[in-house]
């Protein structure tokens, strides 16, 4: 999810949901107080970070596809800790690599963190149960990953539509997103299953302690999803009523009509803006050089 597709209202609403989820998970993690979880969370976060750098961009939507890893983390760490790890990786990516952006951070934490951990993981547990049969585990991982990613894709489409900024028609967008995320889901399911079975043979102790009662997260999880839907609906409704011309604007865009000068953001000549901007930039550089010369002399 990129900043460019998001309106401040939807971004803020999702940010609120994400922040609440972070607070709730933090409280649970602190209460459970499993000290040995801390280094594992850090390591898995580092791994996830490296894995997510392999970005394959989906043309036309402004989104990029990469392995989410939320399901895998939930299997290895338990849902609350996994959510925090995903959130931390997304925060670092948004802050230091401008990947996604701060406005989209709430959406990303919800789509890539909340959905796989609190919807995909319970599904995985329901299918896999306590069995160690590799086929069953792989099937569970595949289904969990595919469902998480499809829900994530639907969420992105919903957030884009609610924002009302994108020029991309809804049907085209959905037609792009869903099949691609199906493919990504299959890959992620396979990778998750492979890593889980590897850990199970090499380090079974890692998986034993994670017997988080899935029932205890179902209630709050449903609550968060409902809250997210309500908030997004309110944001979208608010936008629609306040700016009816937003709709005409998007219709004009998709039919490739030329913009009337009145709706142009340039109230003055664009040349003046560019001249002023370049001058300001040059001024800033001069100030910078002067400061540098002063600090070099000390």
């Amino acid at each position, binding site marked *: 999810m990129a900043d*460019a597709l998001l309106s401040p209202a939807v971004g803020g609403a999702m940010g609120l949901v994400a922040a609440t989820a972070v607070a709730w998970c*933090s*409280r649970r993690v*602190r209460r459970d107080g499993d000290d040995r979880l*801390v*280094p*594992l*969370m*850090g*390591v898995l*976060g*580092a*791994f996830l*970070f490296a894995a997510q*750098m392999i*970005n394959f*961009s989906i*043309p*036309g*939507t*402004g989104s*990029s596809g990469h392995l989410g890893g939320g399901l895998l983390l939930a299997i290895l760490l338990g849902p609350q800790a996994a959510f*925090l*790890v995903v*959130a*931390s990786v997304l925060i*670092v990516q948004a*802050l*230091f690599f*401008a*990947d996604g952006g*701060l*406005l989209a951070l709430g959406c990303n934490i919800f789509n890539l963190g909340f959905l796989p951990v609190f919807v995909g993981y319970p599904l995985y547990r329901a299918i896999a149960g306590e069995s160690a049969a590799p086929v069953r585990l792989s099937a569970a991982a595949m289904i969990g990953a595919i469902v998480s990613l499809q829900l994530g894709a639907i969420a992105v489409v919903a957030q884009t539509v609610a924002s009302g900024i994108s020029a991309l028609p809804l049907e085209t967008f959905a037609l792009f997103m869903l099949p691609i995320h199906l493919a990504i889901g299959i890959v992620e399911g396979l990778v998750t299953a492979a*890593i889980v079975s590897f*850990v199970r043979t*090499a380090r079974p102790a890692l998986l034993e302690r994670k017997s988080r009662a899935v029932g205890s997260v179902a209630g709050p999880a449903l609550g968060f999803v409902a809250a997210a839907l309500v908030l997004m609906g309110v944001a979208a409704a608010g936008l629609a009523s306040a700016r009816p011309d937003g709709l005409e604007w998007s219709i*004009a865009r998709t039919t*490739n*009509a*030329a*913009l009337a000068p009145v709706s142009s*953001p*340039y*109230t003055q000549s*664009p*040349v*003046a*803006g560019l*001249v*002023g*901007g*370049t001058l*300001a*930039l040059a001024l*800033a550089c001069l100030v*910078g050089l002067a*400061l*540098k010369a002063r*600090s*070099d002399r000390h």
Partner: protein
Amino acid sequence: MSAPAILGSLLDFRRLDQIATGDSTVHRLDARAKVLVTLVFILCVMSCGRYEVARLLPFFAFPIVVVASAGIPASVVWRQSLLVLPVALLVGLPNPIFDRAALLQVDGLAISGGWVSMLSIVLRSLLAAAASVVLVAVTGFPAICGALERLGMPRPLAVQLLFLYRYLGVLGAEALRMNSAYELRSNGHALTLRHFGSLTGRLLLRTWERAERVYLAMCARGFTGEFTSGRPTRFGAAEWLYLGGWCALFILLRTQDLVARLGAAVLGGLR
């Protein structure tokens, strides 16, 4: 991104942490002020309209001035900020394709809105990346985590951010070791997929073991989740000045169309 590129960017990141131990007026400020200023900066930049290009240019003053006055090497900051370009270009690429309605007329040449918004996206990403890199360079990541916690982030998440950062370095070092070991034993053959799978699995386990040893060593030396950076953390007059001054400038640049007025004044004067 290729593996050497990833490792290269990680190493640059550690270089930023080294630079953060410098001593200048900016370095000595409380981390919270610097974090808040960066957040306001990013908010102001990101909230600009999708077709704003000229209005974004003066925002470059922030990273330029801070880099200059803190005495940090501009080349490192610049290189790290440029990392964002490929992603920004990919995100912006659909715009010229889908947004072809003419927006500007410059000397009879019609420029479509798509190109303008793409340029805007690239500039925006550069600005956000530069601000973040500068923040790490003058503050250091541990101090940033501490500041975020004092500004309201829950401690488990702040601790996780810190460990994520530390273990990225551990992971990188282990991966390099494994890579050279494989190269020495593989007699010039390229890495096969099967070997890659098992190497990654071993990397995970080995990094985890090492991380656990590091964590236990930290606990043995008294780590309880607090963040210390060795600098006094008072939020005094200098911090208020820094915060107020920069935020006022950003909000002014964001809300008033100063650049257009400056440009019009200059053009009017030239006529």
